[in-house]
């Protein structure tokens, strides 16, 4: 398994945001975490990236225990995240933001980075047109593309996407999911958090359902998408 999360507990002060969360992500998979608002999805993602301290449990990546590794040492291992709310560097240009994505790469001075940049620009032509625009002046959807592109610039083994379709127009949502599939087919493992459960389940090999900080169900994307209880709770019954 590429990523193994075991009995993870994370608190904000006395509030237990997630409790005994366990799941795995295998090499080459797209795995999705689904859950209502406040279920603990973002907390899980941030903890995998090292932005939140772990109260109990463990995280292993490529077999190595990274539970208490500082956040800034994780990109080099191959973990990149496009965070909820985008978190682009508003005062930097598009090109500078993408450059920041490659900050931790050991091969950042080689042509590999240039190739990845070309790939990001071809995935998101809009970014290519706006290379010198300051990120803070871009639209929400454009910033979302930038956040995803920036994460790709790390050439991660594991790409964490927290609500990549947030704030996007329906046509673009479709496009983002296509890109997720494409990235995955090019060999990147993806852990995806989405409000858009229907799309996420359709694209994911496997899925976990989080409720108030705990994993309550797991299965393949197709299995869960067909499950009446899941349909009722997360898919609005119309898939």
């Amino acid at each position: 398994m590429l990523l193994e999360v075991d009995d993870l507990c994370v608190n904000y002060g006395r509030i237990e945001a997630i409790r005994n969360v366990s799941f795995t992500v295998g090499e080459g998979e797209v795995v999705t975490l689904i859950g209502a608002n406040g279920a603990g999805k973002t907390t899980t993602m941030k903890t995998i990236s090292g932005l939140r301290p772990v109260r109990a449990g463990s995280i292993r990546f490529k077999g190595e225990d990274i539970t208490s590794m500082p956040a800034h040492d994780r990109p080099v291992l191959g973990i990149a995240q496009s965070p909820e709310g985008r978190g682009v560097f508003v005062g930097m240009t598009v090109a500078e933001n993408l450059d920041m994505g490659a900050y931790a790469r050991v091969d950042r001075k080689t042509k590999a980075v240039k190739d990845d940049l070309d790939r990001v620009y071809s995935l998101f032509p809009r970014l290519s047109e706006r290379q010198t625009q300051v990120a803070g002046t871009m639209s929400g959807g454009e910033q979302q593309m930038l956040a995803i592109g920036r994460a790709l610039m790390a050439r991660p083994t594991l790409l964490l996407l927290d609500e990549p379709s947030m704030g996007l127009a329906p046509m673009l949502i479709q496009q983002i999911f296509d890109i997720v599939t494409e990235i995955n087919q090019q060999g990147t493992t993806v852990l995806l958090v989405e409000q858009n459960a229907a799309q996420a389940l359709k694209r994911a090999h496997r899925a976990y359902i989080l409720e108030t900080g705990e994993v309550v169900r797991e299965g393949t994307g197709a299995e869960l998408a067909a499950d009446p209880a899941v349909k009722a709770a997360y898919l609005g019954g119309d898939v």
Partner: protein
Amino acid sequence: MNLLIHHFWELTITGLTIGAIYALVALGYTLVYGVLRLINFAHSEVFMYGSFAAVWVLMALNAAGATGLGLVGFLLLGGIAAMAASALVAFILELVAYRPLRKRNSPPLIALISAIGASFVLSEAMGLRDKPFAWLGLDAKLADYVGRPRENTPLPALLHSQKLFNFFGYNVTNVDVIILVSAIIMMVVLDQFVRRSRLGRGIRAVAMDAESAALMGVNHNRVIRLTFVIGGIMAGGAAMLYLLKIGVTRYNAGFILGIKAFTAAVLGGIGNLRGALLGGFVLGVAENYGSALVGSQWKDVVAFVLLIVILLFRPTGLLGESLGKARA
């Protein structure tokens, strides 16, 4: 009014030279604020220690009276000594006064108290520097260095102010030129470093969004340490230029200068590098014009009235807050 008109260029140029010094010190406040949202009140002491380092090194080397290449060498050496000492003090300051608080997630107010405390400790340690040597019985031997610790300590007579050329009636001196040219070189180097180098981008990234920066692999603590050290280097450079202009330093030399530099940083938009530079120059010049208009005893009043007026109209300073927005 007459005074201002007749001495306009003199006031402008001497204002720019003191403004350049404010600006260099202001960079330290603004850099640290950018990444930590903290006013490092002890930065004035970082400056003051640099000034002593320059004086002592030049004293120890018997630099007084040097000419030609020797003079140039001593000036550079003094500057380097000041930069090194200031950078070291800033580094230790961060390690001792701020890092332990950050580890424990203390509220910003606590860090502010720590900053003010560190400022007093550093300043008084310099002002009482004869005492530990007296206990060791070394005070007589080192009297040149530690004697009369609360008095002015002069820079060894090195550079004599000389008229270089006439600029609209004001005789521009070699000291004016040296100060302005070296300050501008330092500013340009810093600006390019922050904009173009990888570490500089790391600093800007942390200032804009610390969590995202960590996701990119930027080491937060290293960036913070780096900003303190860079701020120290700039303050050390400023200290050497200050000595050339003013000629003396003392244990509390950082106090007023620090407040002025902090004012310059706020004036330009705290957290904004180019803002700090602009703020420094504007403050230096405005102070001079103001004292010509209403009397030089009102100089400091003019500086702060200017600050208040500008903040009333532009609450985030001339160029706006944050290392991010103004792209520098």
